[in-house]
């Protein structure tokens, strides 16, 4: 509770740097591409949840997702929600093993990364996404096997005392040619998705070479919040991380020496999504997912977690340039499920 109040006070005091990354102040307006009329649903219009659900939660994003679950629990006293937390890749691994043994234990899998969702959907029989849910999402994020909940962009956070945004090349493939030290988190699902995207865009050989050259100048961290903290502390000059970690750090420490750089039209600025797979179909499970797409939850994700809401008509978070100003690559997120070749490359480069 206290934390949130502090955040709100900071926001009110104007400590948040909405224009720090080249984004105009007006950039925090309405989300793009929302179909007119299909505004977000309010949680009040949803039926009460009643019954037992088991959810595997891949990374709680430092407790922010748990706050959402706690709020849903509070609204629905009849809901008995069992949550198993863990890294998204670890839980995907568990679900695949469970599916092979024919004993899937989870009704829902909420993961911070699309590749884990794709793998699980491939191995365990995932329920098809109901059309009513799909239609609530922005175009480009409507998938058959899982429901996108929030978006995130790959970024290059850099230490703003050591370098300026212009010092970094705008191609991720050119980064190993620089003299900078980088931080990364190779065990983290979103990083592995980034490497998968690079593989799909640049090919196996180029990606393998990139990893090997990068390995010589990279320091490993357990998670990407750690990467961003190390960057702001000056342990490394720059890093690889989802955008929101930097925004969250700046929210708590507005004078932290870290800013965001974006590469252009390559894996370095991949737009990825968190989402939910329904593993055991039931009305309860579907209604639960409906809650994650409500205006309240989507707004919370944008405001507190700095994630990009994927339901049409919910404003994007402050501090992030509008998607229209960025040049994300064209990668179908469903193809990120092809993780094995990526892991092979990571192993071969001695990075994993």
């Amino acid at each position, binding site marked *: 509770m206290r934390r949130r109040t502090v955040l709100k006070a900071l926001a009110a005091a104007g400590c948040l740097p909405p224009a720090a990354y080249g984004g105009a102040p007006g950039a925090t307006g309405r989300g793009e591409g929302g179909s007119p009329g299909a505004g977000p649903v309010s949680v009040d219009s949803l039926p009460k949840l009643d019954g037992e659900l088991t959810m595997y939660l891949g990374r*709680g994003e*430092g*407790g922010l997702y748990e706050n959402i679950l706690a709020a849903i629990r509070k609204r629905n006293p009849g809901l008995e929600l069992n949550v198993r937390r863990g*890294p998204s890749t670890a839980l995907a691994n568990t679900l695949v093993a469970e599916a092979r043994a024919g004993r899937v234990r989870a009704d829902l899998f909420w993961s911070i990364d699309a590749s884990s969702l794709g793998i699980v959907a491939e191995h365990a029989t995932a329920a098809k996404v109901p059309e009513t849910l799909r239609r609530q999402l922005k175009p480009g994020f409507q998938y058959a096997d899982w429901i996108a909940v929030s978006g995130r962009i790959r970024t290059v956070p850099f230490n703003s005392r050591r370098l300026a945004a212009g010092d970094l090349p705008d191609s991720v493939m050119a980064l190993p040619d620089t003299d900078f030290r980088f931080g990364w988190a190779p065990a983290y699902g979103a990083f592995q998705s980034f490497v998968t995207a690079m593989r799909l865009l640049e090919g196996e050989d180029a990606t393998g070479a990139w990893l090997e050259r990068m390995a010589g100048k990279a320091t490993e961290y357990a998670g990407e*919040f750690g990467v961003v903290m190390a960057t702001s502390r000056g*342990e490394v000059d720059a890093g690889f991380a989802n955008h929101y970690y930097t925004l969250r750090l700046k929210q708590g420490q507005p004078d932290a020496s870290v800013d965001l750089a974006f590469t252009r039209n390559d894996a370095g600025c991949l737009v990825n999504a968190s989402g939910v797979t329904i593993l055991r179909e039931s009305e309860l499970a579907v209604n639960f997912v409906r809650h994650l797409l409500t205006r309240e939850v989507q707004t919370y994700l944008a405001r507190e977690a700095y994630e990009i809401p994927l339901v049409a008509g919910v404003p994007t978070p402050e501090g992030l340039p509008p998607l229209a100003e960025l040049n994300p690559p064209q990668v179908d997120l469903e193809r990120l499920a092809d993780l*094995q070749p990526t892991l092979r490359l990571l192993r071969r480069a001695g990075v994993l």
Partner: protein
Amino acid sequence: MKRLSFSHLTSALVALAVLAPIAVLAVLASGAELDLGGQTTAIVANTLALTALTVTGAVLVGVPMAVATAHTDLPGRQVWLALLAAPLAIPSYIGAFAYFAAFGPGGELETLTGLETASVRGLFGAALVMTLYTYPFVLLTTRASLRQLDGSLVDAARSLGLPLGQALWRVVLPRVRSGIAAGGLLVALYTLSDFATPAILRLDTFTRIIYVEYNAFGLDRAALLSLQLLALVAVVLILESRVGTERETAQRPLTLALRPGVRAGLVAAMTLVLLAAVALPALVFGIWLWRDGAGDFDPVLVWNSAYPALLAAAAAVIVALPVAHAAAAGSAGRWLERIATLGFGIPGIVMGTALVYVGLRLDFLYQTMALLVIGYVLRFLPLAVGAIRTSVARVDANLIGAARSLGASPLEAFRRVGLPLILPGVIAGGALVFLEAMRELPATLLLRPTGLETLTTELWQVYEAGYFGRAAMPGLLLIAVSAVALVFTLSGENRLNKARGY
């Protein structure tokens, strides 16, 4: 005869249960690609280097302290001993966490004092942290052998003209070698199986890579690496079984008078070790608590940690009684005991990996509290057996016979004669299992029932997410509960020692 066979049967069952995970791993590993290439060499080298450095460090720190607290005129020796054993209450990963966050550019120490410090990472960082939390094993085993020394032998050597240093080296050291070796091997076992410390300090040891592979759909590789790690563990266990304990009847306790300079140096060194092992983590976690507050810490985590550990302690004691009984009864029982206690050498990450797959075949066990407790018992049973066996060996069969001949039923004879005699061992063993189970991390991560978050899993997730400030409450509470369990263990052992007349 009937009791004897019951004990043997139980021992045999436990021995089978311990061997089962190894069989499971062998099956899982059968499909693994062997082309881990240079990676395997690096993992073996890292693991061996960490183990060697940690054992060396623990001996260098632990042995002088054992001498200082056993045989000198240092004031307050008992207080020093209690303080120096205190790091046992702190899981090494808490130390790793604190050192990771305290040192290096922008670390907590720099924030606090403005002075730049070097990072504590990698091989030497991990060895330093492991040393700080494992030296008490060497301290305690060495001290136990020192206490059995006859002081008059040293006096004889000195009166024949040997200087003190030489007397210690030539007369004392050869006779406490087995104590030092026992402690050192225990340290080696801990280092080989520790998962979180090398993971946090970023050293690619077997345990860390097993976890990484397990989570990257590389189960067969994880199983293969597990078997390779077990081979290293087996070497340590074989060495351990060769360390004999020589006993001599202590005639006169040895007391060394220290020169003021030496005494000051000793006190300074011991204070430094305590500052590094206890004060620094307390400071770091204290800063976090002060800065970030308790946050939304859920007190139920304390119970979630204690409850499975209590179940494991109770189950381990119940299973340990017949195993210890069989071991005391003859050589067949001793062999069974040796197999049944192999589990201590199976690292938690390996045990967890194997039991998950047992669980997937046996649906009624998968993700249940029962499987978690079974994992703890298989792993920590040796601690209970060790504590109980010493007390069982003391029970003279004639005493039970006397009670029976006076008309007591077998149950009554056990309750009124046998149990009181072995109770100190039972308490010490149970507390030790509780202590280890409560702070176990890797097997808990894999085996816990859905929804069960413990202090250790919370700490790990806070670490992985990078929100260190939130580690304050789980970290400090883990230390507090460990300290209570440690007091129980040590007091049980004290009573045991008193009963043995030490």
